[in-house]
């Protein structure tokens, strides 16, 4: 079987033995910046930018090495040391470099490097720039730990590390109460998902006696369906938390309070896709449980629609993109839920999405940079002219996300829709509709931002960003366009051994004409057209217009996700807390205070015996002696 052959890791050689440097370099850089403090204020951001570039270089060399190897040799397990050895469990710290993880490493370090470069310009005047770069490096290190780990326990370390970095970066401007709250919200919601992942790891340790991918992949075949489903659902819960899938989606929109490079790196390209990685990595578990796979697909589809819906109603450019991110990750989850056939498509879309969404987020950052950090699209308009480079790079991202033929999103998204159509027609149809909605809201974004008439606030003079910011945009725009063509014919075969799929039939950069593909294209064109008809023909009001459209109102309120959380979790939780407090005060404290009062009263009564007269005490003593003596005498009589 290809599945087992591909997962038998070979020993590391050459550069693979120092693969840990990929993680160590950014970690060391983050540590230096944080420990040395103000000393590194002047040059820290350069050090921090070099760190992911160095990691990227290592990853690129390893990738080239893997490319040159035969398929069976492409899984390398570089075990470093034993972390925990307790009872029958041994948890090693080790890194698994295989076709799946190396693609992630390249995406993280590549896009990460570009975003670091971009941040040099974006954060140039921020007093906390050093801290920001330290956190970014910390994130890179944690994310690489997550994807390179060879077992779930080490993966969890990275999982929590990115959670921490995400928290620190969302609330980076912690002087803003909204940012601080958003960070806390992301942290708390992620805890719910982490609970699922930890439970899944415990289950694995209990069922397989190990948390390593190899052991889990082998052991999964012997699982009973119930346990497999449970394990699959627990992993799905973890993935939902990290990837902002329904029902744990609420934190992602608020996470946009963080600096825009953070949104691009963490909340678009890399961290939020960790859930997809987790599901794909656990393919052996899902292979045993159609129920959990279906749950993954359903969650993906629901999020796909919800994200798109939210995207249609928001005026905040970053929130539109955040909704879009949710939606696109929904595609990936859908693909991951469909089964082995679609795993490569999930990763494929993850990569292309990483490029074009990072591109668009950075583009949005560039727009904000020129618009005095205003995020309201109603204050934009006609920005294509003053910000040419930003406009064209953003346009590439736009064309990619809506699925324009020959752009990257076209290949990856159409593959998913087709696969879904084949396996789960209902979900496929919904995904198809969502493609239309995507086209609709992205066109709306383009119209409101770059086209239409200018609605700038007073004193705002849009201008192009400096080179340090637009060069990364250009470098991201290129893969946004070509990544699909380049990878379409290759990625299926490349990933097949790692994700347990079959090698698909030969695909090429020339798109295969299928009925579903044509319908998708038609739906996308319809979405663009409707958007143009609604928003393009008349002026965009600078104020939020009143609407009776229930769909729009719901979208503006994030589909009432927060209200749902408050009603279902917060309110009962608070009621429970109040009840517990009432019980504590009434019953527990009452008992404690009651016994205290009783003792005090008893003492107040007894203290009158303490009259200070020795003779009285003596009498008491004699009476005591008589009582004891009587007891003895009576006791002996009996």
């Amino acid at each position: 079987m290809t599945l087992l052959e591909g997962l038998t890791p070979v020993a590391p050689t050459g550069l693979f033995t120092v693969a840990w440097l990929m993680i160590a370099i950014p970690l060391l850089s983050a540590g230096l910046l944080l420990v040395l403090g103000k000393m590194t204020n002047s040059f820290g951001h350069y050090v921090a930018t070099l760190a992911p570039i160095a990691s990227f270089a290592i990853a690129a060399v390893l990738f080239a090495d893997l490319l040159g190897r035969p398929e069976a040799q492409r899984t390398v397990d570089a075990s470093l040391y034993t972390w925990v050895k307790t009872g029958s469990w041994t948890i090693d710290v080790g890194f698994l470099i295989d076709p799946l993880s190396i693609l992630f490493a390249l995406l993280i370090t590549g896009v990460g490097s570009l975003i670091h470069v971009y941040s040099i310009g974006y954060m140039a005047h921020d007093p906390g720039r050093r801290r920001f770069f330290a956190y970014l490096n910390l994130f890179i290190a944690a994310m690489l730990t997550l994807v390179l780990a060879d077992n779930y326990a080490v993966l969890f370390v990275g999982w929590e590390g990115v959670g921490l970095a995400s928290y620190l970066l969302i609330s980076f401007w912690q002087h803003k109460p909204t940012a601080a709250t958003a960070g806390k919200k992301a942290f708390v919601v992620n805890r719910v998902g982490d609970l699922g992942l930890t439970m899944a790891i415990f289950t694995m340790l209990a069922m397989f006696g190990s948390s390593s991918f190899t052991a889990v992949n082998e052991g999964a075949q012997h699982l009973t369906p119930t346990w497999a489903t449970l394990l699959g659902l627990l992993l799905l819960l973890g993935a939902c938390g990290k990837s902002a899938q329904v029902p744990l989606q609420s934190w992602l929109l608020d996470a946009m309070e963080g600096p825009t490079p953070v949104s691009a790196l963490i909340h678009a390209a890399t961290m939020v896709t960790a859930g997809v990685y987790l599901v794909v990595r656990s393919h052996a578990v899902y292979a045993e449980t159609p129920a959990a796979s279906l749950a993954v697909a359903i969650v993906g589809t629901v999020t796909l629609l919800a994200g798109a819906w939210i995207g249609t109603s928001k005026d905040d450019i970053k929130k539109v993109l955040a909704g879009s991110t949710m939606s696109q990750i929904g595609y990936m989850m859908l693909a991951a839920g469909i089964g082995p056939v679609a795993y490569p498509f999930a990763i494929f879309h993850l990569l292309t999405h990483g490029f074009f969404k990072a591109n668009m987020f950075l583009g949005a950052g560039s727009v904000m940079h020129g618009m005095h950090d205003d995020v309201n699209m109603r204050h934009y308009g006609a920005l294509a002219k003053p910000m040419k480079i930003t406009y064209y790079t953003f346009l590439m991202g736009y064309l990619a996300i809506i699925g324009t033929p020959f752009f990257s999103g076209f290949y990856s998204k159409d593959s998913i829709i087709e696969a879904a159509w084949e396996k789960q027609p209902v979900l496929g149809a919904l995904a198809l509709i969502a493609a239309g909605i995507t086209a609709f809201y992205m066109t709306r974004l383009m119209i409101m931002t770059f086209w239409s008439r200018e609605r700038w606030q007073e004193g705002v003079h849009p201008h192009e960003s400096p080179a340090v910011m637009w060069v990364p945009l250009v470098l991201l725009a290129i893969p946004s366009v070509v990544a699909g063509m380049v990878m379409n014919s290759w990625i299926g075969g490349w990933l097949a051994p790692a994700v347990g799929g079959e090698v698909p039939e030969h695909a090429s950069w020339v798109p295969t004409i299928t009925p579903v593909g044509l319908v998708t294209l038609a739906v996308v064109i319809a979405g663009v057209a409707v958007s143009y008809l609604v928003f393009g023909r008349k002026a965009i009001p600078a104020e939020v217009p009143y609407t009776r459209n229930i769909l729009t109102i719901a979208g503006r309120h994030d589909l009432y996700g927060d209200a749902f959380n408050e009603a279902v979790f917060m309110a009962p939780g608070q009621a429970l807390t109040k009840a517990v407090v009432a019980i504590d005060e009434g019953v527990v404290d009452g008992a404690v205070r009651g016994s205290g009062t009783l003792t005090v009263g008893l003492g107040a009564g007894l203290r009158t015996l303490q009259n200070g007269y020795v003779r009285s005490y003596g009498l008491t003593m004699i009476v005591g002696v008589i009582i004891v003596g009587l007891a003895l005498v009576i006791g002996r009589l009996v």
Partner: protein
Amino acid sequence: MTLVPLVTGAEVAYWICGPIMILAAVAMVLFRKAVYSALSLALVMVNLAIIYASQDASFLFVVQIIVYTGAVMMLFLFVVMLVGVDVSESLVEKIKGHTIASVLAGVGLFILLAVALGRGLVTGAVGVEAANAKFGGNVQGLAALLFGPYVLAFEATSALLITAAVGAMVLAHGERLSPKLDQKARAAARIEDFVTNGVHPGPRPNSGVYARHNAIASPALLPDGTVSEESVSAVLVRRSGLADADSLVAPAKAAFASLDAVQGDSEEDR
């Protein structure tokens, strides 16, 4: 040693000394003056010594009289004298019902003691004659015990006695509250008084010396013939008042006057 048939010396001693002891003990409790109580207790103890003797405990008989009655009780008397022999305590009972309760408790205890001890009693007694004879006498027998099996306890009592003696000294020792004034300090204080208050620093004038009186109550006369009040102790002044200087001087003046008269006569005779 049968005095009367069926009556032994021990019985005689018991029936004579027992009632005396009980009476003396009750008296000790009832006497209002501590001295009488102490003497009553001494009487109890002497009688107890006799009972010891009647029970063949000759060493304890002697010790009871010499040590207990002679030393301990005399210490009591000594302290009674020290703290005021004439102090009699008030009869007002501050604790309500205390006396009655105490007597009831005493009676209850007595019944309990009688019952408890009575159950453990045997009618006959082995007698200590054999034990005494073993080492040649009561004193030798006790000595064999004290310096034999009980030698550690005996040594411990020595430590106890020393501790008690030291403790009594520490407790009864009166602490001086202010430093003792030496001659230098007194002189300095006197000069200080002179400087600040103008008090004469030298010794005060002696009492007056008259032809027929030189008692310390007689005031001295200043050169102008007035009385110096400083020359007589203030205590004496308060107790008996200053002696009248005029009356003290009067005899001398009378004598001078008569001398003058005689001299005048002889001159006239010449």
